[in-house]
């Protein structure tokens, strides 16, 4: 690597963004921070694409029957919206973008354990994304992101391209998970026992376990699907002697734990942010840490709750319903702990904290509506309706995406060394909160009234709900556009960020913004990441500095 021989002209200039210049230095980088930035750009591009499809879907649903496209185009649009958002945005979003950037720094390490594997993971992501794009150009896919057989083995279009894309993205995810597990085990400083780790690392660790254990099952399932579709090997299609319900078991055995791949890192971000912006030690550290692990374990045992109406036995339904409720407990514990962290704090309502509050509001609704779906008698009615659509958007978007935005605004000054406009930041956070609720709360009501999901036409009594939902989604989209505008503007015109603008205690805030290439000039001393008593606010830099004489100064 040429960059490793590069000598910075001055210490101030030696940040990872300037350490090596040109496109090639980025595309061959082994620096975890640059790979994090590459991932950030990639997942945001995917989010934009998935969002475009969401806008197409919502606009089509303004009226029953044709509004802007025919039924087949609509079916392809919601399939691509789901597949892109799940495989290309939510799953890699927090671990691969922010996890890569801050995990080694939070450990006081120079990099992840396997830097080359890390870069390989990003390249696999790009290859997987290209496969997904090819599937759009090569005829589209109309199966829904779940690829249920035998529909997916009998319909036309480019199903094989998209499933192979998801297969490759699975390996990208496994590489990241493997890297994080080894890094957390081997690169912690000697003084950092498990219970001295920042909670974000606990959540990334729990996530990585699921990534490594569950993703191979998805890979195998998709390969079987491709074998059946391409060579007529009978596995899932009853016409060939297969069993379509078996596909659903295989698929959800991965895809339910994948829900926790999506939400656990988000919970980790909230744990960091709620403490920092309350200026107070996180409440119930051990309960939060253990509940991450509990969620990772229980998450493997509940896949059958996606199949209560599939024809699996009543006994299986009973067991999966009971186990499903077990997952709700650790999630509830976390919510109560975050809330109590705010008690008698000194709450700074900066943009990242607005996303924390938004998360608590939306995730609470998402979690509580899960009770209706875990309960057998009510799930039978609600399954495959808009109630489910609203529920998982409240968890995945109201939870993970909102936490992602909180993390983006929290780490942005660290990643790029610039502050964004706080005024526009707060405005966008409020727009997204309001737009989100208008869009998706309406969907709870139409769903419980019996509106099935994935419907192109719908009975006239649902028109009003669909229209409210669509108008809400436009407000939501406007919020995202606003964020893009002021964040990009901040790169050029933003005030230079201090090393520690929020007064946080984790190690990434001890190095400069943006961090130097090797992260630390000297190994940070032992400290409690949630103890803020040694930090003093300094008005001249609008940030925090270590108090004179305090450790770490």
């Amino acid at each position: 690597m040429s960059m490793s021989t590069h000598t910075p002209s001055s210490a101030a200039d030696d940040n990872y963004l300037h350490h090596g210049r040109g496109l090639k230095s980025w595309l061959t980088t082994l620096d975890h921070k640059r790979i994090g930035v590459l991932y950030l750009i990639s997942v945001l591009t995917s989010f934009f694409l998935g969002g475009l499809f969401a806008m197409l879907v919502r606009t089509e649903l303004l009226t029953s029957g044709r509004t802007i496209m025919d039924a087949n185009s609509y079916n392809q649009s919601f399939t691509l919206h789901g597949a892109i958002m799940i495989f290309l945005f939510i799953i890699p979003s927090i671990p691969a973008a922010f996890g890569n950037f801050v995990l080694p720094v939070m450990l006081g390490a120079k990099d992840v354990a396997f830097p080359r594997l890390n870069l390989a993971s990003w390249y696999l992501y790009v290859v997987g994304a290209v496969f997904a794009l090819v599937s759009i150009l090569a005829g589209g896919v109309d199966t829904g992101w779940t690829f249920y057989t035998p529909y997916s083995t009998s319909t036309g279009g480019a199903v094989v391209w998209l499933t192979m894309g998801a297969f490759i993205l699975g390996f990208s995810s496994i590489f990241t998970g493997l890297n994080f597990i080894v890094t957390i085990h081997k690169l912690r400083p000697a003084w950092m026992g498990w219970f001295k780790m920042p909670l974000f690392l606990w959540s990334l660790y729990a996530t990585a376990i699921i990534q490594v254990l569950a993703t191979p099952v998805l890979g195998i399932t998709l390969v079987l699907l491709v074998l059946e579709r391409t060579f007529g090997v009978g596995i899932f299609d009853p016409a060939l002697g297969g069993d379509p319900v078996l596909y659903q078991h295989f698929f959800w055995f991965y895809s339910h734990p994948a829900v926790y791949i999506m939400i656990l890192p988000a919970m980790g971000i909230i744990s960091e942010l709620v403490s920092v912006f309350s200026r107070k030690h996180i409440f119930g550290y051990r309960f939060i840490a253990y509940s991450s692990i509990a969620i990772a374990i229980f998450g493997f045992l509940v896949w059958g709750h996606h199949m209560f109406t599939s024809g699996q036995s009543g006994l299986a339904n009973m067991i999966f319903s009971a186990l499903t409720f077990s997952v709700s407990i650790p999630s509830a514990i976390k919510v109560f702990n975050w809330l109590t962290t705010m008690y008698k704090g000194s709450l700074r309502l900066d943009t990242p904290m607005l996303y924390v509050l938004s998360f608590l509001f939306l995730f609470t609704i998402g979690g509580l509506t899960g009770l209706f779906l875990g309960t057998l008698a009510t799930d039978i009615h609600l399954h495959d309706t808009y109630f489910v659509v609203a529920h998982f958007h409240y968890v995945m978007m109201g939870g993970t995406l909102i936490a992602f935005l909180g993390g983006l605004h929290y780490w942005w000054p660290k990643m790029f060394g610039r502050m964004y406009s706080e005024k526009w930041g707060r405005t966008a956070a409020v727009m997204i909160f309001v737009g989100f609720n208008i869009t998706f709360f309406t969907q709870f009501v139409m769903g419980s009234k019996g509106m099935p999901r994935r419907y192109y036409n719908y009975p006239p009594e649902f028109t009003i709900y669909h229209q409210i939902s669509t108008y809400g989604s436009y407000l939501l989209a406007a919020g995202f556009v606003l964020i893009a505008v002021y964040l990009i503007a901040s790169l050029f015109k933003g005030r230079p960020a201090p090393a520690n603008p929020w007064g946080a205690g984790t190690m990434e805030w001890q190095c400069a913004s943006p961090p130097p290439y090797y992260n630390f000039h000297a190994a940070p001393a032992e400290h409690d990441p949630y103890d803020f008593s040694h930090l003093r606010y300094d008005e001249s830099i609008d940030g925090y500095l270590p108090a004179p004489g305090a450790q770490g100064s």
Partner: protein
Amino acid sequence: MNALNTLLGSGPGAFLAQGGGSFWLPQRGTAIAGEVDSIFNFILWVSLFFFVLIVGVMAVFIVRYRQRRAGEVAASSVSHNTALELTWTLVPVALVIVIFTVGFRAYLKLTVPPVDAYEVLVTGQKWNWQFTYPNGYRDGQLHVPVDKAIRLVMSSEDVIHSFFIPDFRVKQDVVPGRYSKIWFKAEAPGEHVILCAEFCGTGHSDMISKVIVHPAGEFETWLEAAGGFLDKLPPAEAGERLTQSLGCNACHSVDGSRMVGPSYKGLFGSPRRLKSGDTVTADEDYIRRSMLDPAGQVVEGFDPVMPTFQGRVKEKEIAVIIAYIKSLSDREAPQP
């Protein structure tokens, strides 16, 4: 569930059949729907309680503990309290055990039919439902007697569908290669919509039918009259009826409008340009082949999505359908 209803401050009477529905739920057509609704309402109240608690506490904290001056420090440094942690672990555990139990008990009632149930066979196919009665009669709508347990034995001809009657709060996937079962007992005469809830392709959202609940004693009369229509009605009328019960009208219009398949209007005797490039005239044989081997002659501009009816329609049925399609065209039969 009476205790539960009383607990919620509404008597059992509020959950009688023919309930008009609520802000959240559609109308109720069965007694069990009322039970499902009371569980829904119970969870709704539990959820509302916790939502108001969490968001309320959050709001109070935001107002009370908001930082007034940059750099202020927290007034407390408490970081754990085991008794509190155990309380908010064990209280939710107790609550979800209750919710699971009531949900499971109602689920058993919802899925286990009485032994004397009247059986109707259901076939799902892209994109219509067909109901076969014990006397062999088939219909595109589900006719049932009131106050009688009905058991549906369901299978699919192609991909997975899901049989959903919102007003009855029942739903069950219909899977190719196996039979799935569902049951209900309608409490009053009337009509309720049947939807497909599992995505099945282009016409998924048009895979709609209805349950027609007949008043006491009238179902038997209806079934007997309906059963012999092939012999009783003139061929074109019998054909019209048959295209509805076979679900042909889900994809073929009779007014010239374009749906998934070509319209029947003006079809007979017209020249048809095929995907293969050939042009054929739509005569009796053409229509017959279109039913038995639909992929063999796809009209240009349409997709080869029609399932075959080989072995599923009798000769006499083919004849009346041809008679019906003929009646929708003013062209004469082509001369050889």
